[in-house]
């Protein structure tokens, strides 16, 4: 199978991570995300969700977390972002700035209109960026509305937008655009990739085509009963100004579907 | 000669303003205090108030307290002195329905349910009474009471403590309206001379402002004397009525009549006379009932009556 060429998993019990002392010293070229030998069981759950799971993504860029519903994408994301603790193993992310996690059920405060909320939550000096994002996210006409007046996809977009205005080294987007229409979603993804070339993104989505097309590395979470528990696939990492190789895209999609 | 312009003092009564405080409000209303150069704030009392505490805290300069309060305070080191004794006869008595039985002696209490306010001076008085007759709690059923007369109305308690000059009047009216007659059981008839309301101040006040004390007591006793005179009844009713809007003048007139008998039982006795023997007896009773740990020599705290 072609699949094997693309899986770059670390087998449990065979750590391939660099020497920890080197890591600590900081001289080693840091991995963007590095999870090593993660074991985690939800309190009250029978079986562990992750058992010696390893994940590594080397460089910044637009990456994805993919996998069937219930496989553990959200859980892994929250472990990486530090939202969940109580797991065994080691997690590291690169960069001086925080790793932020955003998900599609977030709500905005109800007392102020969207525009004011965005103003109040953007760090100084980001007004141009904010205006640009509002425009490209198709939100210009909603700035006077409140949370309760937004449609689901509108709320998702505003939510993602406010995170993009923050300082981060890594932004994990948990189905952040799941309720947005495809054209808008594409515009948004292209825009993010062109505006934040230095940052790391981890995009959780159930859309295999989208993930294949836009993402650089795709971590497929396969569930605890499969071994290895994750697979890494290389995506097309497409940008708006480049041609898209449709055959390669389809191959990536196939690989992902096989791995999942 | 030594009249100062409007010296401000506060005077804390023992109870709400009613016929029992006629002299106090009379002195105020008729301007007797201001004639003495005093600007007196006469403040109503109540069960949660304590004039002696207020003297020490400086919230009041003069007050009204019953003898048991004075003796308790002395037992705990308060420096209080008695300036005048307003009631020569303690108005605390027990009311009962005359049609149901009659109480001709302490012995007759046997088998009755007698109301007392636990911790109050009526408890002390009743216990002293029972002791004189050799009765104990197995023979007389003591029942705790409060301001709510319903147990008496419902005959759950048949002998009920009242202030004869105020509650005594309207309670007999109420029962009379229901076709019932009442009678009173008066401890002083059986040798218990437990002292009631008296005027007190602090030793420091007396030491530091003797003139003010003298002028205050002069005006106050003049007020009481005038208020108790039948001729000034209308004025007394007027001044009391200014505060006590819930009692009709007719009832107040009868309340005043009884009050008069207790404040001036004998025209020969000046208003405000301190009955030293009664004070001594009060202390003895309290000692006997272990309400104070040891003698306080209350006699030493009684100031001779100023002449006026």
């Amino acid at each position, binding site marked *: 199978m072609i699949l094997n060429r693309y899986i770059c998993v670390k087998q449990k019990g065979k750590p391939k991570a660099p020497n920890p002392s080197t890591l600590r010293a900081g001289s080693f070229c840091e991995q963007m995300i590095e999870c090593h030998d993660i074991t985690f069981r939800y309190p009250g759950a029978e079986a562990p969700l992750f058992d010696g799971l390893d994940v590594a993504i080397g460089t910044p860029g637009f990456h994805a977390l993919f996998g069937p519903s219930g496989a553990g994408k959200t859980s892994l994301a929250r472990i990486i972002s530090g939202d969940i603790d109580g797991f065994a193993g080691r997690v590291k992310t690169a960069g001086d700035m925080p790793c932020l996690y955003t998900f599609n059920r977030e*709500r905005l405060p109800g007392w102020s209109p969207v525009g004011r909320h965005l103003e109040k939550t953007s760090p100084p000096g980001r007004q141009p960026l904010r205006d640009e994002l509002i425009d490209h996210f198709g939100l210009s006409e909603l700035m006077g509305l409140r949370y309760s007046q937004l449609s689901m996809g509108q709320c998702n977009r505003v939510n993602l937008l406010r995170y993009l205005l923050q300082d981060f080294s890594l932004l994990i987007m948990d189905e952040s655009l799941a309720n947005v229409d495809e054209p808008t979603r594409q515009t948004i993804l292209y825009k993010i990739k062109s505006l934040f070339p230095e940052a790391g993104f981890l995009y959780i989505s159930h859309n295999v085509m989208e993930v294949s097309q836009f993402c650089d590395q795709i971590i497929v979470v396969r569930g605890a009963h499969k071994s290895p528990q994750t697979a890494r696939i290389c995506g097309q990492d497409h940008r708006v100004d480049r041609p898209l190789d449709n055959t390669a895209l389809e191959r990536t999609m196939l690989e992902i579907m096989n791995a999942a | 000669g030594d009249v100062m312009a409007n010296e401000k003092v506060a005077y804390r009564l023992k109870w709400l303003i009613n016929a029992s405080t006629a002299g106090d409000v009379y002195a105020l209303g008729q301007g007797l205090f201001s004639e003495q150069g005093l600007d007196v704030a006469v*403040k109503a009392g109540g069960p*949660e108030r304590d004039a002696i505490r207020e003297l020490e805290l400086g919230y009041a300069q003069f007050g009204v307290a019953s003898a048991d309060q004075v003796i308790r305070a002395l037992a705990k080191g308060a420096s209080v002195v008695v300036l005048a004794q307003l009631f020569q006869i303690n108005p605390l008595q027990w009311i009962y329905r005359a049609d149901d039985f009659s109480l001709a002696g302490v012995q007759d209490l046997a088998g009755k349910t007698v109301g007392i306010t636990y911790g109050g001076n009526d408890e002390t008085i009743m216990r002293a009474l029972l002791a004189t007759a050799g009765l104990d709690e197995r023979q007389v059923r003591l029942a705790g009471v409060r301001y709510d*007369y319903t147990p008496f*109305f419902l005959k759950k308690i048949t002998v009920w403590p009242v202030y004869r000059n105020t509650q005594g009047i309207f309670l007999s009216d109420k029962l009379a309206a*229901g076709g019932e007659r009442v009678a009173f059981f008066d401890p002083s008839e059986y040798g218990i001379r437990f002292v009631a309301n008296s005027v007190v101040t602090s030793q420091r006040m007396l030491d530091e402002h003797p003139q003010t004390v003298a002028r205050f007591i002069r005006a106050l006793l003049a007020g009481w004397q005038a208020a108790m005179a039948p001729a000034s009844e209308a004025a007394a009713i007027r001044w009391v009525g200014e505060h006590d809007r*819930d009692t009709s003048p007719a009832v107040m007139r009868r309340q005043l009549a009884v009050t008069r008998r207790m404040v001036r039982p004998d025209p020969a006795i000046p208003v405000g006379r301190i009955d030293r023997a009664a004070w001594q007896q009060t202390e003895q009773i309290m000692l006997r009932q272990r309400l104070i740990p040891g003698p306080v020599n209350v006699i030493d705290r009684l100031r001779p009556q100023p002449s006026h």
Partner: protein
Amino acid sequence: MLHRRIFQFFIVYLSGIGLLFGIKLVLNLSDYVIPGPVGVWQTAQTEFYRYMGDVLDTFAVAVIGQMLSILMALGVGVAGRRATWFGSFIKVAAYNVQAYPIVAIAPILFILLGDGFLTRLFIAAMICYFPLLLSVIGIMSEPVADIEHFYRVTGRLRWQLEVKIRAFENLHKLTTVVSGSATLAMAGTIVAEFIAANAGIGYSIRIALYQSDLSKILVALFTIGITLSLYQGALELAGAGVKKAWATG
């Protein structure tokens, strides 16, 4: 709206007084135990205006006391919302202070505050604040994760914001308990007047009690009830207004 409340109050009041008259009839009690309708009506005619004045006096104190207690409850609730040592200490303190019946600490209050307006206000606020506190602590100690997440991960969740979010999300519960606490403020002020004042309807009730005049008490309860029903209605309207203003203004 308001006239519905008044109508409902009349039903409540008349049922209560009807019950009393019923008991009187059945047990054949004399007028000094439970007054008859005629006696109550006569008393109403002579005392109604005076009592209405007293109630308004009480009402003014109650409104101030209510505001005080809302502030106290917010302060203590916000300080005690966390499950930390300090939070639990604040709660222990607040709960203990409340458990001591006002009647028991009245003498201490008199020592500390004298016997003026302040004591009255303080007692009213004490009686009113605790129920508010319980609600506020319940609301303030429960995270609204979907909204707070953003602020927390971006390091913006200062306590003011946390309080604002939780208050907004529980606005309905807060307005219910705040407008309901008017009742407590009124009851508290009456108790305070009963213990410590020489004005207000509480004081009048006390005198009526000393005189064993149930007619007067029934009339006083009527004036209290009608005033309160009106205030209650007004507060609920105001609460609805606040909700609307904050959500859309």
